[in-house]
């Protein structure tokens, strides 16, 4: 069912996750993330989608007391990014993230996109300018902002801001991009633009996206994983999941029989 000829970019193996209050939010989650494909995570609220996603860039390390147990192995180098010896900052340099609400920095458009490079001590102006342009083009934003790169990012519309955040993430050449409900704060038109953009990134970038909106997962993803109560209930290619899921739970969720 799953196309096995596509290389695997990352793989979670028996991943458990405990929040600082002891809550076990992920239970033995194993799944592959295929290279240059879009993988969507769906499931009812509180099932652990965001928790799972945020394991990939060790975002949980920002808040003390959280505990990982299990592995997330990146390929081709076979690094377990959850291992104790691995610095979260190093992980975040390889794996970018785009958040639910557009969160541009209070800087100019240019500086927003350049931020990742500055953090990486890139001093060469030419290199920075080129990268910024490339990233903005990649995020389909270049044409709209090329004449006002020095405007404050806050002056952009919500959808543009979100594309700016995507450009910011793109500028650092990440190996994987994480999206946590990237459109739930946007109106339908901006949503469609972001979805279309993700569609264009497919094939160039490995994407893992959490979405509340089942239909969105159906529209944009190649593979879909259905999570429930911290467990991975079913994983498969999107066409299959949406037309003939294997498990009753998935079927019920997809056809609106939960409750």
């Amino acid at each position, binding site marked *: 069912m799953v196309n096995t000829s596509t290389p695997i970019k990352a793989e979670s193996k028996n991943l458990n996750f405990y929040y600082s209050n002891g809550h076990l939010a992920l239970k033995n989650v194993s799944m592959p993330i295929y290279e240059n494909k879009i993988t969507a995570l769906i499931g009812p609220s509180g099932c652990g989608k965001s928790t799972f996603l945020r394991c990939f860039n060790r975002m949980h390390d920002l808040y003390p007391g959280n505990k990982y147990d299990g592995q997330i192995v990146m390929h081709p180098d076979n690094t377990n990014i959850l291992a104790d010896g691995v610095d979260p900052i190093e992980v*975040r340099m390889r794996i970018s993230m785009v958040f*639910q609400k557009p969160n*541009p920095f*209070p800087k100019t458009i240019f500086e927003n996109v350049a931020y990742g490079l500055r953090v990486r001590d890139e001093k060469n102006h030419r290199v920075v300018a080129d990268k910024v342009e490339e990233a903005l083009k990649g995020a389909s934003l270049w044409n709209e902002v090329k004449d006002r790169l020095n405007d404050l990012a806050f002056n952009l519309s919500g959808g543009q801001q979100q594309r700016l955040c995507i450009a910011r993430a793109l500028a650092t050449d990440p190996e994987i991009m994480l999206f946590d409900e990237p459109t739930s704060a946007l109106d339908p038109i901006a949503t469609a633009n972001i979805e279309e953009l993700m569609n264009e990134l497919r094939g160039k970038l490995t994407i893992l996206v959490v979405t509340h909106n089942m239909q969105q997962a159906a529209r944009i993803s190649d593979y879909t994983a259905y999570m429930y109560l911290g467990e991975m209930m079913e994983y498969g290619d999107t066409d299959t999941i949406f037309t003939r899921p294997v498990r009753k739970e998935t079927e019920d969720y997809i056809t609106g029989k939960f409750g």
Partner: protein
Amino acid sequence: MHNNITELAISPRLAKNIRRNIKERMIELILMLAALSAVFTTFAIVAILLYESFGFFETVSLVEFFTSTEWTPLFEDAHYGIMPLIAGTLTTSLVALAVAVPVGTIGAIYLSEFASHKTREITKPILELLVGVPTIAFGYFALLFVTPLLQIIYPDLPGFNMLSAGLVMGVMIVPYIASVAEDAMRAVPMSMREGSYAMGATRFQTALRVVTPAATSGIVAAYILAISRAVGETMVVAVAAGQQPNLTFNPTEGAATITAYIVQVAMGDLPHTSIGYQSIFAAGLVLFVMTLCFNIIGYVVRKKFREQY
């Protein structure tokens, strides 16, 4: 037919309308009068200051007021130059700011970005308590604790000096700046920080490159409000800096500030219409105008910050 029925149903409501509306109007009027008290107070302040200063400036020319380098309204040989008082005020304020701005800002950054949740929860209230300590206590502290301490290091320091008054005032203002600046930084949404961390930034990079710029106007507002407070501060300087008008910017000397002068005059029982009595209103007017300027700037900056989030 229909119309009749509904009219019957509605008319008792309409009767209630009128009573209801009168009551609502009355309440609004009373509340408005209360709100006007603020305007009244401002006008009263301005009016009193102007009125009494008017008497003062009938005797003293504005030129002398601003150019004379001596302030001795109570002496036989009276001079009316406000400059010494302003110099004293500014010097103590600058010393205070020199302490409060760096300490307050760094403290704020530490609290909002580095401190653990627990540290913050404990430290923040203590800082707020510091704001509540009566200034007279700080005056005592400056005069009887800090000055002797400084005299160990610097034996020539006079008993009344602007340095110790300024230093204590600085520490007194730290929580002001730290608290307001930290609020401003905390108002920066967590998502923005997560955005930065997600790019691989460290805490310090995030604090310096993202959080502080985002909170700039809030932090600046904190500084300005702190200046205004330093300028208007009375008891610390009145107690510890001395009450001798002295045109100097050397903090190791003693000097009177505007506020200290007013206290000094008010302590002695001056006759109502004397020039000495009037002089404190003139000095007060100057003080009022200075703080007003800072307040307005601070207000504008803070408003701008509020609109941002």
